[in-house]
């Protein structure tokens, strides 16, 4: 984290997102870097979402495709930002690279990606020119079929097997993990508050559990502490450990003086 935690965020950056244009994080990254000259670390996701919701409310109609594209886009942004917040483990492969090497590696991927993105644009032109063509698709008249397929060439059982999966009732989605998460977030907050109260500060690495999901909960709890003004989060370098420090509340005297 360059500035104080991203949740506080750098000053808002004017960012006009044409949602139809982006297809994924690479696309977004290339565009952000090339056109807007802005840094992903400075993009405020919450602002983008707020703007989009306003835009939706204004336009009055709900375009499912555009909205799902938006969700994908925001998820991509969040993924990019969270990689910067979480520790290196996420991208193990890049762990040992120095930042220059990592940058070169990313550049290679972006350059390669851009070729396909542009090739997709060229395909669109071909599609416009050719996709409307009408080909004849009429079965050959039986009279002209000298030797049609041997009788019983395919097993009828295959038809039954093809339909059977559709006849099976889909399983009820398992939502138990959602409940778990809600409970453990509260618990985790309590635990972190205790550590914070005792020690005054701690690092993410020192308190985070091993399990990925549990780590995420710990991270959420950190953000919660931060947004509640209970703690300040600091990070010396991107992908580095997070230092959590307790915030001393203003003396109660000030409040009663008003």
């Amino acid at each position, binding site marked *: 984290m360059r500035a104080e935690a991203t949740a506080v965020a750098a000053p808002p950056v004017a960012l006009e997102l044409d949602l139809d244009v982006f297809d994924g994080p690479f696309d977004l990254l290339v565009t952000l870097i090339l056109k807007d000259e802005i840094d992903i670390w400075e993009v405020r996701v919450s602002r983008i979402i707020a703007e989009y919701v306003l835009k939706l409310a204004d336009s009055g109609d709900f375009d499912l495709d555009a909205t799902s594209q938006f969700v994908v886009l925001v998820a991509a942004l969040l993924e990019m930002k969270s990689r910067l917040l979480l520790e290196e483990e996420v991208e193990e492969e890049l762990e040992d690279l120095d930042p220059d090497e990592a940058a070169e590696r990313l550049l290679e991927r972006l350059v390669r990606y851009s070729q396909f993105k542009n090739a997709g644009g060229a395909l669109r032109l071909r599609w416009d020119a050719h996709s409307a063509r*009408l080909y*004849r*698709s*009429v*079965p*050959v*008249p*039986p009279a*002209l*079929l*000298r*030797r*049609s*397929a041997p*009788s*019983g*060439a*395919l*097993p*009828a*059982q*295959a*038809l*039954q097997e*093809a*339909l*059977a999966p*559709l*006849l*099976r*009732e*889909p399983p009820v989605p398992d939502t138990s993990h959602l409940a778990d998460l809600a409970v453990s977030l509260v618990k985790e907050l309590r635990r972190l508050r205790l550590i914070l109260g005792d020690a005054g500060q701690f690092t993410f690495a020192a308190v985070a559990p091993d399990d990925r999901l549990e780590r995420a909960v710990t991270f959420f709890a950190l953000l919660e502490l931060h947004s509640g003004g209970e703690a300040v989060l600091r990070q010396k370098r991107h992908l580095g450990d997070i230092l959590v420090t307790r915030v001393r509340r203003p003396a109660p005297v000030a409040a009663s003086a008003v």
Partner: protein
Amino acid sequence: MHALARRLEALLFISPRPLTSPEMEAACGCTTMEVDDALAVLRVEYAAERHGIALRDVAGGVTFVVADDCSEDVRRFTGAERPDELSPALLETLAVVAYLQPVTRAETAEVRGVSSEWALSSLEERGLVEQQGRAETPGAPILYGTGARFLKLFGLHSVQDLPPLEEFSLQAAEVDAIRARLLANAERRRA
């Protein structure tokens, strides 16, 4: 050839069945006389031995057929044609049509949860699925079913001989039960 003759030629080329004069008039937005004139042009163009295909008048309509003296080559070609492999998507669509026939495109899509336009036309092209009239519902959608070629390919005497689905035997009444069950499951999958 003049423009209307060319448009009629294209229509006759693409149509899987003979076209009647009223159909041609409606499609081209022109009069009986204009269609007759254009047909006359086509008849000259496709007069005997000029082309490998010929215009033929059959039961109330006009259609292109393979010229008689070219049919041997065609048989040599089609005789060698093997039923190509059916992809899982095609097999699933074929199963839906086979068990639920007559069935509309929308119903097929509903049951499978995905658009089935390509799959149905691909099966139709292979002669495994055929149009069997239109439903008496708004929009009169085309009804699809299986035909003789389907039965032969799967070695069946009739669709009653399809392997039964779990507890369903394939009596007419039970087809509705299968349909209801498939639709309910599709609904749940979407939810």
